[in-house]
């Protein structure tokens, strides 16, 4: 089986945001996700990597296949070592913009995936883990 293994994309520029979503989309396609889900996954990756770039100056995106309870899926971890999110509830609620977007990046990407976990520590950084099942 030609299962793709782990891919890591460093986010150091705006072009890397595009790179991360292209790689996520390619892996989603290879795993058997349809167009709709490929787009949902890539869009979530785009939002999360932009957050890492804009608020932390960069970060790391790890994309990998996952197995769980007899189902297959994709997991993406976006981590940065920025200043963390002070008001996480507000950021997750949406409409809270400190950058040039719509303030819906975090809340919006949460709606696109099956599992969304965020761990943030003020002064240390943020790790967002998302999963989508086939």
């Amino acid at each position, binding site marked *: 089986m030609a299962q793709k293994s782990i891919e890591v994309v460093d986010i150091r520029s705006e072009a890397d*945001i595009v790179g991360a979503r292209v790689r996520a*989309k390619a892996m989603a396609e290879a795993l058997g996700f349809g167009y709709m889900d490929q787009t*949902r996954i890539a869009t979530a990756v785009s939002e999360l990597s932009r957050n890492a770039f804009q608020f932390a100056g960069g970060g790391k995106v790890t994309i990998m296949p996952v197995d769980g309870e007899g189902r297959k899926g994709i997991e993406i971890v976006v981590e940065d070592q920025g200043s963390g999110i002070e008001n996480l509830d507000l950021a997750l609620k949406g409409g809270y913009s400190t950058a040039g977007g*719509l303030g819906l*990046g975090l809340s919006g*990407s949460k709606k696109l995936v099956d599992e969304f976990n965020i761990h943030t520590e003020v002064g240390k950084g943020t790790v967002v883990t998302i999963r989508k099942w086939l």
Partner: protein
Amino acid sequence: MERVSIPILKTGDYLITSPQVALHDKMAVQFKDDILRRIVETKAKGLVFDISAIDIVDSFLVRQIGEIAIAANIMGAQVVVVGLRPEVAMTLVEMGFSLKGVHTARDLEKGLEVLGKTRKS
């Protein structure tokens, strides 16, 4: 960063543009400036913005598109966004984004029709 210029074509009173590459953030902002400058230069009355080749539209691009439409409007030109892919439209809806204030149409032909109608009314 490389400067990629996206063609903005003129036909009659209208401009037509159709980016064929993924627009990263700086490119999107540059493209917005280029469009607005072309509207002034050509005194265009409308712009059809075909995004059928764009497979990912995220919050940043939505905001840029909205700003293009508003700024163009202030300068007397209508913007019609055409060619939205179904999976892109669905993703925007699910995320809670709207292209409020932006005219949309199915394709280039319909987009030009919309521009013709808004001018008459």
